[in-house]
């Protein structure tokens, strides 16, 4: 197989130059000192990592975990019954599944904007409620943590439904009938038979949702306003406005380490990592 090497060459070159090298540079910068005009240079230091212990940044890290966790929990709660519905549908499964994946193909930015259009002070929901006389002043629906969770759930729900559906699809329908025949009520069948069977799918979906939520940038930026800052926003800010690249790099390394740890655990447990 002489050909094999040549086939791998372009992909290897691109990944080495544009993925591995940039990551290495970020790791190196995280150990440098910020220059007077925003550059970075000697001496080598661990100062940037020490700053992460500052309550301000530790708080942001905790909050990022919290928001990602809540979003994942909501996706679990919303995704499981939807996956069950599709798996148990008598007909048109492809259509129902397609309707879940369709938003995935539409622009993430557009989907976020659609919610901003509904939720802002002058948005559709507030306009309607004001018009009906239900409220006197617009409700603060946008620019808070709940809006961020809503945006993340909306964006990543398909990631939960697909793996759960994949597991439920293979489930033997006779098990459900057996449970029913043996006197289990419908909700008991779901709780004690279907849910345990769906565990691998739920775990895979949980990881697939949690990872992008943890590093989210766009949703907290647009739907959280200035109030709901997460790790991703701090990193972007350090590299653009604040121009403290070494600190931004240290944050990136820590975020990357957390994501890699999660992905590694998921992969070892046989979750859907995405790659061979």
């Amino acid at each position, binding site marked *: 197989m002489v050909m094999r090497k040549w086939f*791998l060459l372009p992909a290897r070159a691109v990944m080495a130059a544009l993925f591995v090298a940039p990551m290495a540079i970020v790791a190196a910068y995280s150990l440098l000192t910020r220059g007077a005009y925003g550059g970075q240079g000697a001496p080598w230091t661990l100062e940037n990592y020490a700053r992460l212990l500052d309550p301000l940044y530790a708080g942001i890290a905790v909050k990022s975990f919290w928001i990602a966790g809540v979003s994942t929990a909501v996706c679990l709660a919303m995704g499981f019954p939807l996956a069950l519905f599709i798996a148990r549908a008598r007909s048109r499964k492809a259509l129902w599944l397609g309707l879940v994946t369709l938003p995935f193909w539409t622009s993430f930015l557009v989907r976020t904007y659609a919610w901003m259009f509904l939720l802002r002070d002058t948005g559709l929901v507030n306009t309607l409620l004001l018009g009906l006389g239900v409220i006197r002043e617009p409700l603060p629906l946008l620019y808070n943590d709940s809006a961020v969770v809503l945006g993340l759930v909306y964006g990543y729900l398909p990631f939960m439904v697909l793996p759960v559906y994949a597991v439920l699809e293979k489930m033997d329908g006779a098990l459900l009938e057996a449970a029913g025949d043996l006197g289990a009520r419908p909700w008991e069948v779901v709780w004690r038979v279907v849910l345990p069977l769906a565990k691998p799918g739920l775990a895979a979906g949980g990881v697939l949702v949690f990872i992008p939520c943890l590093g989210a940038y766009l949703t907290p930026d647009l739907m959280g306003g200035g109030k709901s800052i997460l790790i991703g926003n701090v990193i972007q800010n350090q590299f653009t406005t604040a121009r403290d690249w070494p600190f931004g790099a240290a944050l990136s390394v820590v975020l990357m380490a957390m994501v890699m740890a999660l992905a590694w655990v998921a992969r070892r447990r046989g979750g859907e990592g995405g790659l061979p």
Partner: protein
Amino acid sequence: MRRGLAVYAALAYLFLHAPLLILAAFSFNTSKYTVWEGASLVWYRALWEDGRLLEAAWNSVLIGCAATVLATAMGTLAAYAMWKRGARWLEGAFFLSLVTPEVVMGVALLAFYQWVFHFLDVRLGMHTVIAAHVMFSLAYVVVVVMARLRTMDRSLEEAALDLGATEAETFWRVTLPRMAPAIGTAALLVFAISFDDYVITSLVAGVDSETLPMLIYTMARRGVSPAVNAISTIITVAVGVMILMAERWRRA
């Protein structure tokens, strides 16, 4: 239970699709505000006359096409080679690139480009955006094409070789045609991802390479403009049509 599930599913589908449908409906509203004042195409006309928007759309299409061709070609070759025999660190790099948060990838590329610019006389622009898009789409191409290859029978290639075909002929005339549907899907996916990307693009774009998502982001931040509803609707419909056509072509 079945009825309960069906009711729940109806609500869930409403949650998934109502926001976009409402957005589209209001793009035809005459009023600048969120009050219905009658249907018209004013906002679409406004888009057509907006030079900055047309340029951003053109940039997005160019970047999307370039990234699609390059990433699909490189990713297909790599997937085929990896199907023959694993390529450990490359697999690891692809896997990592899939889980890396976009913002981390963006700042890493920015830092890398700035470092390279010390030695070369280049600046941020279309080329840096295209390079970034090719990189982050490669793993998706490999995943899609590899999934197809896994369902294929290796003995077909062996048979071709036994019958005297060269390696290149085997690839070109036996395996590649059977990978075609997956390659088509992968290309579509790359274009959709590239056309949609804001986070990485905004970090590595130059002054001459504003893309459509960057413009929409700026407009969305600035406040309400039904013009944003109109572009959003066009993008959604265009992508939808593209997928339907691809689906038909795949079945044909």
